[in-house]
């Protein structure tokens, strides 16, 4: 069936900010969908609140609304744009939920919008546990067996049938409270009786435990003619009990025989048909009992998911692209296989390599959070590695994680491990480091069976790991000279890195590399082609292997090429923003006539879509792996300044190896990062900076503190995302910090800066071509100094800075950029206190504010930077004046993952904790700010009680704000000190006790749902006190918290404006856009 001609405009809903469990894989799928729909001639309208995405680039859709993903806002967009259809399955759970709300509230019907790709009934059958189980029962496919108990005796009777252990889930309790696993009658009685009490329905679900079973995922596609295919099967290395997003996973399935696999395949297709997924991609998860092959379906997602992004990258089959085409009427056999260009997409990819995905965590950011992996996802990112064997792929994955490791142990970075008892526990407990402990266990001689019993992991994986570890240990202590070509090839085929071989043989990485190449052991690059080489492919999507009889990657004759190094796994401090910059560089350099080569290992991203660049190398971002590609491709230059810290830290080594670093040179980067040299530059340019010192011992630190005084901002050198940063207020805290800091970077000193309490902070992004500097945007932080810039809300243009100050900031930026020798992007952080501008830091690279700044100003900064690096001048790019006035305000607000980490303190500080961001655009600052709050919490308080507790500094400032809230009809409760200040100023309010003051107190009100909004401005050092408990409870109950006066004021003003006129929906295309001219200058 050809595409539908009865629809013209299609509304696509994105997935909003990056949060744990919903990351940039939906930018990848959404971008693909938008591109395809536009190619097919449809008018695309997009709603997504996340500015850091490629999909929200104004060129990706016809109308782009960076607005909150709420039914109310989407209705406004629908009323304005009159879409004929809504495609809900590409925006993750957020997009799906919004679509369901629109459908159920009758909005779609009212405006005559048809839901395509999936209908409401199918979504409900997929998502509603009870309906889903009924569907499965009708098919005769098993789900985990369970029954409801209303008395302890019921539970005992159910257990008679199921056997121990059983999982107990009280119905309708918050966050699954009161549940647990019972291994015997005693535990059962205890948990069930407690659970019955806790459950409002007096009901406990008793479910058989399938913990320890093998876990599989099937990525399925279906078209409306009823054709169904499996794109990819995925086997989890971790057994049931660890969320699949937190598991190491492997594609294709490794340990299923044909009959087992085909049964799972048939079931997957039947499930899609039964649930009623009309078209598109879905994912079905199964558990298999390793003892007898019994198969249980766990769940299905009637939409593209994180695993479909992984499956697309793992096979070369673009699921989201196909899903978008299917949704507009095509069938699978009418879509051409993107890679072969000759065969249809209606087939099942065959792969001739092994893919390993490893999740990346960020527990170090969340003190107090439980780091044991469970059924609730905690990973913030992931890496994927491709090798010809599991061993080769695992080795690559382990060195891709950006956690300092060079492989599966044997790299001199193994954590110190306790005595035998402690060790057994480390091996048995699923954590981010367990894979390393398993390797250590194998080194200590554990058998496969023992390790299998301790971990539940299939012996096949353990045996493969044992081979790796055994070879590592056999190599340990040998001399490098003894290795011949065959031995080297074996080591590389087992996935060992040059760093590991160096560590084990007492050589350094460069010696290993030289020796290896001397022996002729160089890798080959193979191609991901969907068909195991059965048909010729045309797409340059490559991976490296030491199966090197034939190399398939060659430089394109007669073309100048540029290599762009990506950002690696998403983690806190290094997220999608950097991928955005890399993708833009690729687009811009292609426009400038270069062949673009992308290198990255993050499967969630747009950069690793084989469509983004001319060539894609899916490889770890290490010196060894990057140099191997350089050796083959011989690019004209390598871009290292757009992918954040990951590529930046390779810059010096690459340059030393003779690689041309494009744009800002490593010397300039070092000049900005070396504190002493940088301060000399500031002195030279007469730029003020906070008094500072450095120390490697506590004594030195005390001396610095005595010189410049507390509070101090302390941090290790060379960090991104404020890792290991802190503010210390006294000697005790300083001592503790120094003791802990030594563990972070033993070779680098700790920096101690005077902390400017109460200062206003600013971010500035600029371009420089070596002679001219262009200031892209000045962003005023809403949080005071001391909050990491990545966690702080900010507004551009600045809402409270005079033109004179802004001119001064631009002038400093110009001088500094030229002095440092920046060619490309420069980010500067300033603080203003008492009318003095202080330089906090300067980074001659892309910052995380670049995508936001680009969208706020209409100037594609990352593209401009790439073109400058390729030799064009700022004058060539015809940018609008950087002193022009914008008629709108744009606010960026950070999104925190605290809800995922019960127990972790939610207070913000110099260490970055946010995972994502949203953007709000409006005619004024308060409305833009309110849009961001709405985009995060999906609803704003309309009335009720505001809890106010401010520090002494803010007692005066809070008064007019509280008055505004009262005028808006809110009731105020406040802690004693605050309420005294408010009453004194004539603001009506009720005092409430702090938690430490006994019951009833504010916590009781919060738990009872009586608080609609919290304004709590902390001062000084955070401790485990009232504030901590209160903040934690607020996160748990989803109550909006504001921690600064500026934020509180914006909230009040925004609420007022909203009541008066409502917030209007603004499309980016309504704002001035300044695309770069296509014709390049000197780069041609």
């Amino acid at each position: 069936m050809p595409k539908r001609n009865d629809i013209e405009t299609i509304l696509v809903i994105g997935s909003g900010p990056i949060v744990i469990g919903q990351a940039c894989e939906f930018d990848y799928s959404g971008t693909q969908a938008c591109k395809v729909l536009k190619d097919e001639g449809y008018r695309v309208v997009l709603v997504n609140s996340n500015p850091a995405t490629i999909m929200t680039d104004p060129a990706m859709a016809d109308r782009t609304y960076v607005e909150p993903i709420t039914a109310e806002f989407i209705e406004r967009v629908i009323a304005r744009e009159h879409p004929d259809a809504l495609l809900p399955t590409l925006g993750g759970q957020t997009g799906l939920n919004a679509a369901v709300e629109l459908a159920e509230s009758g909005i779609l019907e009212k405006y005559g919008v048809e839901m395509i790709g999936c209908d409401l009934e199918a979504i409900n059958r997929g998502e509603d546990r009870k309906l889903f189980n009924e569907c499965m029962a009708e098919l005769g496919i098993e789900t985990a067996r369970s029954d409801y108990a209303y008395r302890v005796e019921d539970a005992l009777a159910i257990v008679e049938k199921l056997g121990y252990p059983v999982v107990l889930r009280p119905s309708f309790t918050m966050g699954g409270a009161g549940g647990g696993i019972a291994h015997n009658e005693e535990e059962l009685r205890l948990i069930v009786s407690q659970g019955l009490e806790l459950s409002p329905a007096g009901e406990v679900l008793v479910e058989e435990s399938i913990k320890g079973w093998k876990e599989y995922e099937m990525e399925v596609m279906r078209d409306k003619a009823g054709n169904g295919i499996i794109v990819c099967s995925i086997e989890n290395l971790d057994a049931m009990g660890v969320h699949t997003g937190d598991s190491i996973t492997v594609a294709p399935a490794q340990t299923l025989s044909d009959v087992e696999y085909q049964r799972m395949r048939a079931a997957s297709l039947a499930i899609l048909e039964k649930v009623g997924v009309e078209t598109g991609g879905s994912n079905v998860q199964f558990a298999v009992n390793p003892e007898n092959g019994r198969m249980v379906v766990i769940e299905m997602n009637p939409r593209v998911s994180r695993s479909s992004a992984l499956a697309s990258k793992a096979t070369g089959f673009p699921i989201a692209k196909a899903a978008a085409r299917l949704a507009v009427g095509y069938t699978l056999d009418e879509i051409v296989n993107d890679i072969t260009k000759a065969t249809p997409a209606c087939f099942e990819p065959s792969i001739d390599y092994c893919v390993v995905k490893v999740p990346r965590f960020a527990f170090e950011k969340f003190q107090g959070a439980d780091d044991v992996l469970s059924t609730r996802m905690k990973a913030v990112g992931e890496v994927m590695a491709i090798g010809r064997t599991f061993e080769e792929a695992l080795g690559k994955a382990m060195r891709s994680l950006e956690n300092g490791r060079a492989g599966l142990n044997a790299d001199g970075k193994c954590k110190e491990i306790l005595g035998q008892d402690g060790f057994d526990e480390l091996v048995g407990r699923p954590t981010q480091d367990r894979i390393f402990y398993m390797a250590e266990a194998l080194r200590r001689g554990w058998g496969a069976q023992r390790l299998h019993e301790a971990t539940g992991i299939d012996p096949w994986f353990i045996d493969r790991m044992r081979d790796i570890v055994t070879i590592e240990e056999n190599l340990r202590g040998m001399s490098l000279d003894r290795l011949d070509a065959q031995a080297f090839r074996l080591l590389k085929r087992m996935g060992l890195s040059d760093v590991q071989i160096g560590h084990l043989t007492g050589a350094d990485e460069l010696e290993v590399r030289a020796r290896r190449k001397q022996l002729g052991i160089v890798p080959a690059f193979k191609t991901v082609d969907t068909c195991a080489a059965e048909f010729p492919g045309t797409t340059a999507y490559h991976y490296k292997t030491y199966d090197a009889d034939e190399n398939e990657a060659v430089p394109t004759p007669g073309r100048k090429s540029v290599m762009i190094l990506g950002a690696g796994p998403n983690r806190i401090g290094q997220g999608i923003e950097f991928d955005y910059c890399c993708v833009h560089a690729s687009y811009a350099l292609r426009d400038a006539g270069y062949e673009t080569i992308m290198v990255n290992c993050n499967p969630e991203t747009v950069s690793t879509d084989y469509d983004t660049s001319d060539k894609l190398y899916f490889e770890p971002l290490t010196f060894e792996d990057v140099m191997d590609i350089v050796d083959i491709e011989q690019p004209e230059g390598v871009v290292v300044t757009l992918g954040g810290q990951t590529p930046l830290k390779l810059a010096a080594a690459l340059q030393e190896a003779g690689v041309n670093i494009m744009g800002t040179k490593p010397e300039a980067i070092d000049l900005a990062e070396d504190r002493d040299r940088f301060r000399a530059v500031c002195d030279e340019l007469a730029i003020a900076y906070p008094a500072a010192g450095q120390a490697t011992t506590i004594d030195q630190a005390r001396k610095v503190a005595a010189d410049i005084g507390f509070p101090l901002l302390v941090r290790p050198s060379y960090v991104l995302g404020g890792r290991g940063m802190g503010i210390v207020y006294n000697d005790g805290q300083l001592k503790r910090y120094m003791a802990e800091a030594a563990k972070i970077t033993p070779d680098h000193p700790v920096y101690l800066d005077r902390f400017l309490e109460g200062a206003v902070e600013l971010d500035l992004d600029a371009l420089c071509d070596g002679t001219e500097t262009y200031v892209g945007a000045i962003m005023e932080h809403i949080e005071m100094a001391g909050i990491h810039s990545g966690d702080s809300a900010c507004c551009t243009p600045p809402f409270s800075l005079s033109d004179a100050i802004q001119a001064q900031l631009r002038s400093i930026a110009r001088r500094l950029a030229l002095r440092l020798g920046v060619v490309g992007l420069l980010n500067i952080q300033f603080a203003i206190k008492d009318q003095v501008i202080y330089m906090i830091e300067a980074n001659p690279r892309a910052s995380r504010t670049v995508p936001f700044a680009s969208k706020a100003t209409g100037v594609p900064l990352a593209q401009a930077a790439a073109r400058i690096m390729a030799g064009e001048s700022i004058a060539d790019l015809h940018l609008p004046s950087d002193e022009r006035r914008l008629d709108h305000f744009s606010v960026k607000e950070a999104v925190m993952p605290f809800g995922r980490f019960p127990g972790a303190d939610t207070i913000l500080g110099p260490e970055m904790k946010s995972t994502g961001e949203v953007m709000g655009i409006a005619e004024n600052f308060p409305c833009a700010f309110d849009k961001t709050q709405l985009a995060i919490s999906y609803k704003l308080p309309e009335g009720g009680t505001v809890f106010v507790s401010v520090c002494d500094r803010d007692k005066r400032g809070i008064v007019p704000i509280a008055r505004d809230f009262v005028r808006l009809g809110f009731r105020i409760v406040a802690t004693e000190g605050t309420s005294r200040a408010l009453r004194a100023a004539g603001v009506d309010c009720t005092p409430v006790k702090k938690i430490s003051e006994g019951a009833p107190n504010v916590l009781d009100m919060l738990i009872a749902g009586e608080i609609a909004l919290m304004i709590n401005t902390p001062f000084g050092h955070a401790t485990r006190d009232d504030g901590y408990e209160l903040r934690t409870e607020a996160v748990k109950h989803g109550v909006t918290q504001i921690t600064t006066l500026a934020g509180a004021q914006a909230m009040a003003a925004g609420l007022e404006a909203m009541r008066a006129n409502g917030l209007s929906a603004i499309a980016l295309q309504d704002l001035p856009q300044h695309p770069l001219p296509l014709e390049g200058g000197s780069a041609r």
Partner: protein
Amino acid sequence: MSNITEQLLRGTSKGVGAKAALALEDGTVFFGTSCGAAGEAFGEICFNTSLEGYLEVISDPSYAGQIITLTYPQIGNYGVNLEDAQSGKPALRGLVVRDMCATPSNWRSDMALGEYLERNGVVAIEDVDTRALVRHVRDHGAQRAIISTVDDDAESLLAKVRASESIVGRNLAATVSCERPYAHTAHDMPDSVRFALAEVPDARFKVIAYDCGVKRSILDGLVRAGCSVTCVPWDTPAEDVLAQHPDGVFLSNGPGDPDAVSGTYSQVEKLLGKVPMFGICLGHQMMGKAAGADIEKLKFGHRGGNHPVMNLLTRRVEITAQNHGFGVLFPSMGELVPELSGGYTEHHDDLRFWVRAGIAPVVRNERFGRIRLTHVNLNDGTVEGVAFLDVPAFCVQYHPEAAPGPTDAHYLFTAFARLMEGRKDYLDIDIAADRLAGWRFGAEATKELANA
């Protein structure tokens, strides 16, 4: 293997295997390690792209005369369950893999694959860059090859391979057929798949199967469709078959060049029209030959579990298992019948023309009347199935029994049963409705396991 390599491998699951070599007749040589029986083996080099189901491939008699390269690099992961084997003894000549697993993991595994190969005398080589090999075969076509674990001299290997016999024109079916007739019934169903497969129904049809190297799963499929099967040798006279008054005759898969199997297709010519018939793979080619069709040798064949085939009658695409190096040329079966072919009178070599036109064309065959094209391969437009309109017979080039591979086409066994019932709409089956037929899930299966 160098001393230092041996030292590194000490204590791993990777044994220190003998050196082995693979040489193709065009002079390409790959070196690796022996991972099966020792010795030397000659055959036609080809490759299979299935991701799992290596045992079913290795034990498929249709691979007689061939050296199989498996494109998935790690083979043997879940070991060998002897009851998954498609025949008592592998008929292939040799096996090429990237990495052979010596420590399999699966609850149904009886032994490691390497051990199975050794027991059955199959010469095999690992550590080969199989992707490079597959790309070479894809570009240069199937050709003669040798695997040796005793000779690693390239010159000598080339001389040997160039002196070896080609499979073109050879009757390999005769080498894997049965000596004498045998029965295959519900009693012959393997126990170890009962956890996954439905109970066997009572036999309603008496079927005689020409065994040209039949896969066990095909016979199982017939039994599960309600047939009681008697297999007969490849060249059994039609009269002997008809004398037993079967409800239907089945033509099995088999190896090699169909032109060389005249002993079968000459009998098929006599059987068509006298009894309902169904053919798979070589069986399809036998029906084609009986109808006078021409045969082509494909450049490198179809071998894998992911080939899309469109059923022109339902317009549904089936993902199919395939294993053949020769194909029937549909246009050679007769002139088009325009009134049954959308008015078209011109043949098209690329049968995807009919897919795009939405027509299942019909030809008039000199011997058997009208024949309809029912199934087309969407990758290359070759014929995948035909139905005779004037005699009760149909056949497919691909493998509805899968094993290994997707079971989308399972409905064809049901179709054969319907044909034997005399239904005109025998092929008109919704594959979605048929999807779970034959499988067993859940509690029922587990209960039985517990009782077993």
